[in-house]
């Protein structure tokens, strides 16, 4: 009897942790999202479901924009992160850990500072655009800051390691002899990669996409520091509803709409590309 309960007792602290820091706040937020009132007179619980309708009605543009920016940033991360991960895994030799550390090095600096330094990089006469303009490659009035491009590249930059690390982890474990077997069975280098290495690394890509898409679509730092009025993301809306307008029920309702959308997306994605299926990708 005792032996049977021991494992449960061992995970008990974890459950208590989850209950206090995840379930309780979520329930609290859920309750807030159904309240009415204002910050001066106080909020009362009225089970006002219409908060949700209003949230969607007023902010669907920002929600869609956030998902789109998240998707673009994720795609960019895959496009840049996969080759980086592959290079470190296959060509890194003895210095693999050094390269990984270099990749993570910028992230020892606070995200706000990092993003602000991007403002200098992308400024209209900054180190990037200035020279290009002076040699006439870009028109004088070209600008990147405050555009979706700035926000998306900023998002991609700040989440790149979350893509590289899981892809690296699977590529590192791909047995080189399997690649040799493919080459032996008349596959060219490109075919060996497409038919063997890529399918075997899909679980890593799958994990990386989740780890980048979810935080990027809920991000607000990049949009507020690199974006402009036309690039407001849902994270910025939540932040201003909460901290500026003090409309707590609205902020909570938007949060749940976003959460619901992301969860639905994740489940859909997992079903379409679940690990079972990922492993079954046909040659």
């Amino acid at each position, binding site marked *: 009897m005792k032996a049977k309960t021991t494992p449960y007792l061992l995970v008990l602290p974890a459950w208590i942790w989850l209950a206090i820091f995840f379930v309780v706040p979520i329930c609290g937020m859920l309750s807030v999202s159904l309240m009415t009132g204002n910050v001066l007179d106080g909020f009362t619980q009225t089970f006002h479901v219409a908060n949700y309708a209003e949230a969607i009605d007023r902010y669907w543009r920002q929600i869609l924009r956030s998902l789109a920016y998240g998707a673009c940033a994720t795609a960019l991360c895959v496009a840049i992160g996969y080759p980086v991960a592959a290079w470190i895994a296959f060509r890194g030799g003895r210095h693999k850990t050094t390269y990984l550390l270099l990749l993570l090095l910028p992230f020892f600096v606070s995200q706000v500072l990092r993003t602000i330094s991007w403002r200098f990089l992308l400024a209209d006469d900054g180190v990037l655009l200035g020279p290009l303009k002076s040699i006439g490659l870009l028109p004088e009035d070209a600008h990147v800051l405050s555009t979706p491009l700035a926000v998306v590249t900023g998002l991609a930059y700040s989440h790149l390691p979350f893509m590289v690390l899981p892809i690296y982890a699977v590529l590192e474990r791909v*047995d080189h002899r399997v690649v*040799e*077997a493919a080459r*032996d069975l*008349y*596959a060219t280098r490109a075919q060996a990669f497409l038919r*063997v290495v890529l399918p075997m690394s899909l679980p890593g890509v799958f994990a990386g996409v989740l780890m980048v898409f979810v935080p990027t679509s809920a991000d607000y730092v990049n949009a507020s520091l690199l974006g402009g009025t036309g690039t407001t993301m849902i994270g910025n809306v939540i932040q201003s509803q909460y901290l500026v307008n003090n409309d707590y029920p609205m902020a909570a309702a938007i949060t749940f709409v976003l959460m619901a959308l992301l969860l639905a997306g994740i489940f859909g994605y997992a079903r379409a590309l679940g690990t079972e299926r990922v*492993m*079954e990708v046909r*040659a």
Partner: protein
Amino acid sequence: MATSTHEGPAPHPPTTAREGPAAIGLEGVVKTYRSGQETVAAVRGIDLAVHQGEFFSLLGPSGCGKTTTMRMIAGFEEPTSGTVRLAGRDVTGVPPDRRDVNMVFQSYALFPHMSVADNVAFGLRRKNVPKDEVRRRVGEALDLVELSGLHRRRPGRLSGGQQQRVALARALVNRPGALLLDEPLGALDLKLRQAMQIELKRIQREVGITFVYVTHDQSEALTMSDRIAVMNEGVVEQLGPPAQIYERPASRFVAGFIGTSNLLSGTVTTGVGEYARVEFDGIGHVLVRTDQTSGSAVDVTVRPEKVHIGADEPAPGMSRLRGTVGEVVYLGASTHYTVVLANGAEVVVFRQNSSDASNAAERGDQVWLSWRPDHSYALPR
């Protein structure tokens, strides 16, 4: 999915007359690895020709360069110098996907994300074989290795022996000019290993494809091969059929590596016809067939089962030595004796325990050891 009527891939006619070029030819092949400052000479110069349809083994101790040799044939490594030929064509510099040989890896190296059928079909699909033919040939190949019915399984859900068969089918299905097997049974337990040896031999006979088989297990090489190349430290020490390798080892290394051998140090004194007289320090002399000139130091080798042990004086014409029985180990079907000679050298004798085993020697007995002169050879020392 699989056709139930199994005809098997078209077998080669049994080739005794070897027309045409060798399936595989190595000419002065050298491979040196550089790792930092030091260079490792993995293969120091190999010349050999593997005939069409032959079961050819590379046998040698760990680190003697077997895998390196195979990898140069398959195209994963390029020789530092020398030429590799496949069916007469110089393939030096040709990448593995354009060489008509297939490899069976020791670790199998199956594609974990594909079903058994997709694994086996991989090579055919790369060669753009029509769909119907792919399906038919995959079915045949899986029948051949007795895995029909497991088409849809993942390699991860197969036993070691089954994975081994998939790896074999995956290579065989392409009907390559030669199949390269690098210790394919190394990961299997003894019983399965012995079963697979018989199986491999059957499959090779059925398909008639040239097999090059790497092993460091001498009994495996002796039982399966048509010819064996015994390798040591990057060179081929001896190449020949199993019986010749076993009966007439060409070097001290081969004699010691294959089976148990007695080696007695002596000196060639005079020639007696095609035989030479080898003198042992203080214990007499024997006659041995050798091409060593008089005065040269040699090791006389004789297999333990060729030595007769007894109390009676041997018949005239037999090589003979006298000694004292040391250890006697009874093994059921046979008994192993260790006999100590007057100069301290030891001779091991295997004796079958047949029904007429009346006068078995015992520990401490003075005995005569004898053998036919043509059962012993003198190796240069």
